[in-house]
């Protein structure tokens, strides 16, 4: 009887792993298929083998060199790092007085900052486009970077984190005659590292993948970020599937690799997404 229960339990567990593996195929399979197409030689495009017959890296080389993916990769890197840097710096800077300094209007200001999150970007992207164009930011990477350089939910997140830090540290520093800026930069900012890391990763992924804003504000191909380059490639080479697949693989590889190394921070950043919505 006992062993019968055990067999049943083992069987149930085996069944569970079978389901888990099947689901893994559902979620990862399409990406494996993409890589498989990217590795195909020109002769074997319309075959349905997951492992290509004569795998080649030529498609990656062509996409990288001839179709501008080296440039797009560079542009995406610049944009993502700049937006991350600006957000980390500016969200922390803005959150500090809201969490720690007493001044008239602080609550209203915080409320107003939060309420900007309620407005869908697509409502105001047209006037934003006009503003940026007037400032001479059309078709420039700065035009991609600047509008997203302070995320309201980032301010919210860092502010919540500041509240968890005991006040003794800054009081001591204040008595020693440290200025507020020094207190923020030397004491408070380093103490919020976990929140900052989660924010940084979230912002990085969001901007690496951002499509609609670069689509609107950029024009010339040498300014394209990766999502635009991939979309453009798919429009230009409808029949050259292996190029599109190679470009798509180049575009997502950095984030997927980063994800497997920094999973903890990715999932930590999840709560940010919840706040952002």
């Amino acid at each position, binding site marked *: 009887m006992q062993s019968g229960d055990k067999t049943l339990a083992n069987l149930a567990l085996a069944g569970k792993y079978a389901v888990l593996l099947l689901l893994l195929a559902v*979620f990862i399979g*399409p990406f494996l298929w993409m890589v498989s197409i990217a590795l195909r030689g020109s002769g074997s495009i319309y075959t349905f083998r997951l492992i290509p017959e004569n795998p080649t890296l030529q498609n990656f080389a062509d996409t990288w060199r001839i179709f501008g993916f080296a440039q797009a990769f560079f542009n995406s890197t610049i944009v993502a790092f700049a937006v991350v840097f600006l957000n980390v710096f500016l969200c922390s800077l803005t959150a500090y007085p809201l969490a720690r300094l007493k001044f008239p209007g602080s609550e209203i200001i915080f409320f107003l900052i939060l309420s900007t999150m309620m407005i869908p970007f697509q409502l105001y992207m047209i006037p934003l486009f006009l503003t940026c164009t007037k400032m001479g930011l059309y078709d420039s990477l700065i035009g991609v970077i600047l*509008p997203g350089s302070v995320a309201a939910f980032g301010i919210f997140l860092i502010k919540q984190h500041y509240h968890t830090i005991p006040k003794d540290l800054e009081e001591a520093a204040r008595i020693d005659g440290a200025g507020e800026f020094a207190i923020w930069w030397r004491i408070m900012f380093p103490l919020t590292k976990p929140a900052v890391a989660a924010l940084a990763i979230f912002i990085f992924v969001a901007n690496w993948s951002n*499509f609609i804003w670069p689509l609107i504000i950029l024009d010339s191909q040498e300014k394209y970020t*990766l999502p635009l380059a991939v979309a453009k490639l798919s429009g230009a080479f409808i029949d050259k599937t292996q190029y599109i697949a190679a470009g798509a693989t180049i575009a997502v590889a950095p984030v997927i690799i980063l994800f497997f190394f920094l999973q903890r921070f990715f999932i930590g950043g999840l709560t940010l997404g919840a706040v952002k919505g």
Partner: protein
Amino acid sequence: MKFSSSRTRQIALAYLFLLPAFVIIGLFQVYPMIQAFLFSFTDFSPLNPETSFIGLANFVELVQDPAFWLALKNTLLYLIVVPVIIVLSISLSLLVEPKIPFINFFRAGYYVPVVTMMVVVALVWKEIFNTDYGVLNYVLKKLGAIEEGIPWLTREHIALFTIMTVTIWKGLGYYMVMFIVGLRAISPDMLEAALIDGASRWQTLLHVKIPALWPTITLVSILSSISALQVFEEIFIMTSGQIGTATLVYEIYKKGFSMAYGGGMEMGYACAMGVVLFALVFGFSFFTVRTMGQYHTTGEN
């Protein structure tokens, strides 16, 4: 006297900290938001030599525009993804929540689509869904399930639903993690009490877990309906808004920027559509909080 001057200094200092964010948020968010509402009452277009105030004319035109009605219908239809996402992501979280060997590996795998850009996801699925050369129809034919390829993305009334599956597929891992967090927060005492009372798994799920997850379900409803109402990239990549799949955001983009498919830089008109989108997003969030929040409190009584 000294106190008040140091107080003034502190206030000035606080505003100095806030200044950079004020400038950026003001210039790139608040100002365009206000303009968006103002533009919706004008015939503004970069192609027009002058702009005039036309009152509600844009909205009157919207009501008479079949393209707008189709986009509105598709956008509301897209909300079908919300209940599907909730049911599937709860099921997924129940499956991967127990700590068994390698479970972290599976969870991470299911999360990969979440961190992958939609442009690529949409392109990969567009390839898979291809009527003649797509691997899905190939497999279905091999299995003998179909004789002719299904026009997943090339026939009206099918295409929009095909795109929905991609949206759901990409988002599931994200909502799964939210539900795992929710499940972890359920007190073990409650589950144990249910076990002692002889509740079956199904009863425990229905009477203990689901009520405990209700705040998460509400949050997921809000988040997924907001993103469903704003769907754009999937549509742009997979059908270019053709075959009856245009949504509100796609129409806003087309009318505001694109010169293709009958778009014409009619920015005032596009802003009017943006106002409708805003009303929908705001209305649905409000409605969800009201109805689902209500249920939660009565459920507890």
